């Protein structure tokens, strides 16, 4: 009986060891990773069913706001152009809207305030697991896209940002469902003040049904594209190019 038990114990430990190194090996195998990453399509389709179209992210009251909203990612872009804009309080800054649009735009901060505005107190959910609640205000992205005359060939909006990680520029992309969602805004105000630099001044994308890394900070240019697989490393965003899911609804 003892022999049997130590046999089972040995088998359990051995299986555990195999499992550990086996998982790392599977993790490195492109075929297996591809299989696991196929679940992203399931997430996208099922969540568009549950929360597609008009479903709104929860909006909170003032009393629910985080006392201190955590700063994450890059705190201050290093590019000389950006620093010059920041020094001038972004008076000379222009948001470029181009790509597959009929009328490319160059919008100043006061131009942006001329579009229909939306204010919302929402929860920012980081992929790491933490959340912070803050108030965001700015023009709805959909109104800007309509003003630019978005082409029917456009499938994605790409956000080119002023910040970089070790020289690799930050960028993000969303589809048209998110682009025209009523809560998708270009936030220029945060908690009733001009958006601070560490939170993405002068403009931060809010795409409330997805995780924090989709909410591009320091947005310089919005480009309408038919495809994103021919841009940078081809997965549609800085973190996506480093293994994170493009669809970040979960």
């Amino acid at each position, binding site marked *: 009986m003892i022999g*049997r*038990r130590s046999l*089972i114990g040995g088998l359990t430990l051995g299986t555990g060891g195999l*499992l*550990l190194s086996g*998982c*790392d090996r599977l*993790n490195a195998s492109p075929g297996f*990773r591809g*299989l*696991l*990453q*196929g*679940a*992203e399509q*399931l*997430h996208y389709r099922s*969540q568009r069913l*549950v*929360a*597609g179209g008009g*479903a*709104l*992210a*929860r909006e*909170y009251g003032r009393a*629910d*706001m*985080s*006392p*201190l*909203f*955590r700063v994450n990612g890059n705190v201050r872009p290093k590019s000389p152009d950006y620093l010059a804009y920041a020094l001038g309080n972004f008076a000379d800054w222009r948001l470029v809207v181009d790509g597959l649009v009929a009328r490319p735009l160059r919008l100043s901060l006061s131009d942006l305030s001329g579009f229909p505005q939306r204010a919302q107190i929402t*929860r920012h*959910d*980081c*992929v*790491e*697991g*933490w*959340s*912070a*609640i803050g108030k965001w205000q700015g023009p709805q992205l959909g109104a800007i896209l309509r003003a630019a005359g978005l082409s029917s060939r456009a499938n994605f909006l790409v956000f080119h940002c002023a910040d970089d990680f070790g020289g690799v520029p930050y960028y993000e992309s969303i589809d048209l469902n998110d682009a025209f969602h009523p809560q998708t805004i270009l936030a220029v105000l945060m908690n009733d003040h001009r958006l601070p630099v560490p939170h993405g001044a002068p403009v931060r994308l809010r795409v*409330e*049904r*997805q*995780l924090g890394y989709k909410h591009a900070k320091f947005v310089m240019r919005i480009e309408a594209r038919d495809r994103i697989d021919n841009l940078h490393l081809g997965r549609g965003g800085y*973190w996506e190019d*480093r*293994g*994170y*899911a493009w669809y970040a*609804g*979960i």
Partner: protein
Amino acid sequence: MASATTQQATGRGAAAPAGGDLVDRHRLATRLWHWINVVALVVMLMSGLMIFNAHPRLYWGHYGANPDPAWFEIGSRGEQGFARLGSLKVPTTGVLGVWRDPEGRIQRRAFPHWATIPSSYSLADARIWHLAFAWLLAVGLLVFMIASLVNRHFRRDLAISRHEIRPGHIWHDIKEHARLRFPTGEAALRYGILQKLSYVGVIFVLLPLMILTGLTMSPAMVSGWAWLLDLFGGRQSARSLHFIATAALVAFVVVHIVMVLLSGPLNQIRAMVSGRYRLPPDKGLRP
């Protein structure tokens, strides 16, 4: 599946089964689900611990980040690793917070390399594993529930009678377990009340709680199903409950494995593989 009832002993025709008989024990749906869960739960646990490593703090309510008070955290201070629950801080150097990787380098992540998938830090990879196997766990549970309604597994084996739930009966079963006296003969075909309570608790409480609290952390899910946020009191509360339910499931698995080892592991494992179980012979110990 050979859908012989559990009551039917083989080798003795229609006579009541007795100790020593080889009988049909577990249905095909139960056996398949059991082994799918072995894989799914191990992967979910180990990839989940890696995801926890990305932010090893837990909060109550809708928001919670580094500036906010955490009710539980795993961290490090200098060379010391610690786990803190409320105001109770326990040193955990070597296991949690501060540990050495296989190359001997000191790492300052919460859970150590041997407990996580993958073994070296990657939130992106852990999420790929966790969110793919989550489908296996959730769809598996749903299919098992439907199958167990159809094949009457729930009704026949897990339903708890008014007689069984009496404190006296439960206390009797606790004493029998403590003395390591397990049912023999035909009685071994039926689950005891402690077994029923733990299986019912896992199938109908813990696993649904894991799945729903997991979905509550998804910003898209709670845009469509806002009731999830109200049910659990916010995303951070759901994350805390997800972690607590994990601990409860791990405790179940540990006790489950210990009970299998104590009650004839090879016979039990065979019953969960082939469905065939040899009834423990009567030893004349039972009153």
